[in-house]
């Protein structure tokens, strides 16, 4: 069996960035390519502060946001990013799954591509759906979150936020706490962080830690798994609680939100154990008082809102590299 091309392992220090045609997974990107994307985003960040928030980089290109899951944050972020680059944007939200709707994913996508689109941004509840699309379409495909697989642009914007706040990624201690099993944010974060040399500490009850998660680490960083949040917070530079999906409450994963907040909620007392100047991140939307306490969410340590601002710049960088053609901005 020859599995599809999946570059893994560490990349030599001085490679030129290789973006590939699609952005499906951070696993496919070398540390240098990730850094190049972050550098491009640095340049785009300033555009959002201008009076005229628009550059002509993608004029004449058509970007389709194809969302099979409800999303406000990610979709609007992509939409704004595309518009600030002067692309034409089409938003398609398919409420029902393709099965219910009676049309397959590939048929839907082919139909849209027949309108001569350049880039398709897809959000889908099924892991691997962006890959299926990439195999079907001529357009560039950008993964905006697929099941519990990956959310590469979220991973990039988290890296971007950390880099801007701390000046580096390498050597930082990053705590990710929450339902790792069902989190694509945790997976993309873990991959990106370890590629850039961070030490990642995953914390959750064992019911929320998937088998073999530590093998996702690609180095030079590393991953440890633990169940004790207070132990993990000692000396932490970055703390990233994941959104607790309250609908899973009472299912075998955890007893309820009260106990969860007691064991795994980020609050001010707990933060005392973290390193000087530690930041708290959250992919949003937050459950106040559950995974993150009110006062922490609104503190100076919180980067929750700047993550949103950064998200637009990072997605501009991604759209730029994955719409204008390979290496266009390298």
């Amino acid at each position, binding site marked *: *069996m020859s*599995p*599809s091309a*999946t570059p893994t392992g560490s990349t030599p220090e001085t490679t030129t960035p290789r973006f590939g045609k699609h952005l499906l997974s951070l*696993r496919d990107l070398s540390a240098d390519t990730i850094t190049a994307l972050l550098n491009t985003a640095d340049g785009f960040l300033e555009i959002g502060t201008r009076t005229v928030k628009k550059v002509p980089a993608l004029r004449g290109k058509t970007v389709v946001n194809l969302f099979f899951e409800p999303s406000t944050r990610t979709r609007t972020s992509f939409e704004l990013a595309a518009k600030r680059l002067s692309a034409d944007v089409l938003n398609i939200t398919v409420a029902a*799954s*393709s*099965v219910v709707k009676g049309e*397959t*994913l*590939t048929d839907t996508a082919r139909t849209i591509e027949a309108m001569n689109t350049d880039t398709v941004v897809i959000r*889908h509840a*099924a*892991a*691997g*759906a962006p*890959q*299926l699309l990439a195999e079907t379409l001529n357009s560039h495909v950008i993964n905006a979150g*697929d*099941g*519990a*697989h*990956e959310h590469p642009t979220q991973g990039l914007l988290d890296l971007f936020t950390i880099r801007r706040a701390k000046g580096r990624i390498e050597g930082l201690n990053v705590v990710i706490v929450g339902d790792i099993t069902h989190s*694509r944010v945790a*997976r993309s974060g873990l991959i990106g962080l370890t590629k850039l040399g961070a030490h990642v500490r995953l914390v959750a009850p064992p019911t929320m830690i*998937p*088998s*073999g*998660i530590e*093998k*996702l680490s690609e180095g030079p960083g590393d991953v440890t798994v633990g169940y004790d949040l207070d132990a993990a917070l000692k000396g932490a530079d970055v703390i990233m609680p994941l959104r607790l999906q309250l609908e899973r409450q009472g299912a075998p994963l955890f007893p309820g939100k009260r106990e969860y907040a007691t064991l795994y909620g980020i609050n001010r007392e707990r933060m005392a154990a973290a390193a000087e100047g530690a930041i708290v991140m959250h992919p949003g939307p937050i459950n106040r008082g559950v995974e993150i306490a009110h006062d922490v969410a609104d503190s100076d340590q919180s980067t929750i809102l700047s993550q949103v601002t950064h998200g637009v710049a990072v997605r501009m960088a991604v759209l730029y590299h994955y719409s204008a053609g390979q290496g266009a901005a390298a």
Partner: protein
Amino acid sequence: MTTLRIIGGHLVDPAAGVDAPKDLLIEDGRVTQVAEPGALPALNHAETIDATGCHVLPGLIDTHAHLREPGQEHKETVAGAGRQAAMGGITHLFSMPNTDPVCDSVAVCEHITTLAARAGTVRVLPVGALTRNMENKVLSEMGELARSGVPALADAWTPIESSQMFRRALEYAKGVGLPVITVPQDLGLSADGVMHEGAVSTRLGLPGIPAASEEISVSRAIALAELTGCPLHVAPITTAGSVRMVRNARNRGVTVSAGTAPHYLHLTDEAVEGYPTACKVYPPLRPRADVEALRAALADGTVSVLSSCHAPHADYEKAVEFNQAPFGMAALSTALSLTLALVKEGVLPLSDAVTRWTAGPRQVFDLSCGTLAVGAVADFTLVDLAADWQVTHDAVGGRTHGTPWLHQTLSGRVIRTALGGTTVYPHPTDASTYKGAA
């Protein structure tokens, strides 16, 4: 009276204890002489097949295939499966009962055997359902099914969750003299899983099925076989834990046997990388350590039966998101070559590999086929172990998402398959596929 001589070949007939160059004489569809090379008289009226360079095997018995007919002809038909089976040297197919209507009555059994007889490419032995309509509430009319000649009863794809119900089914089956085939699966643990649970499923973000789902079920099956004394065939098994339990039970004399399929002996869960839906099968593909344990179990006879586990679907059903695709691959035409690949890798000798497809199922299911001894029906296949072939769309029923081996080159080429001495592959009306040496 038609007469056929097969000369110059190497006969491997484990049930008869033969693994040597032999010439065969076939008269009126039955083997009448197994002679030393060159010892058969030259008969003017006889057709002669020169099998020089080939191995002559009893036609393979495939004890686990989903033929989908009646009811799901868009996935597969008896005729289509028969054609793929003949290409793979298989002459006998056990058809699993999860058709629509379910094969829980003599009427449905006879319908399937009629379809098979009409197609004429393979002998189909319908396996009866353990319970009526596979609803696991009322026992099927096992006695009637036994009289109509079903070789076994099975629970394929709808495990009987109540251990009491399963126990009664085994007891009753024992009374009518039928062995039971069970596909091990604990539904609570397999839940919404779509592949093996482990580092690969975590990486791919796909819900996993832990090995324990299979192993709990194997454990229960062994306990109930022991309780009831019913011959129980657990298949396919795929994990090291299942292997350990079956080996232990067989050593203690429990009436349990086990089978698996060639793809579980070659592919690991890493094959799911890239989300190819052809690799979505139940039980799921397992990690390397399980594959190694399974290979050892095949070699030492703990796994005494190989089957294709042919579970085909229409291409459009497989060309979807991985977690929405149905489980199963098209496996009839590739099963023998994949088995021979194990011989090449030194996993087990050729005669043992052939045993798993002939004498093994013959013994487990008390069948008369699976041998070419004098008096046996001349269902045979000629294989050129040294010749390669490419897996074409045609070999997997025209499917693109049917097999992970599409377009790949496998060795061990079927040169001819015959039922009762009559060639069914290469298909008589399809000479274009026949470029063999025989």
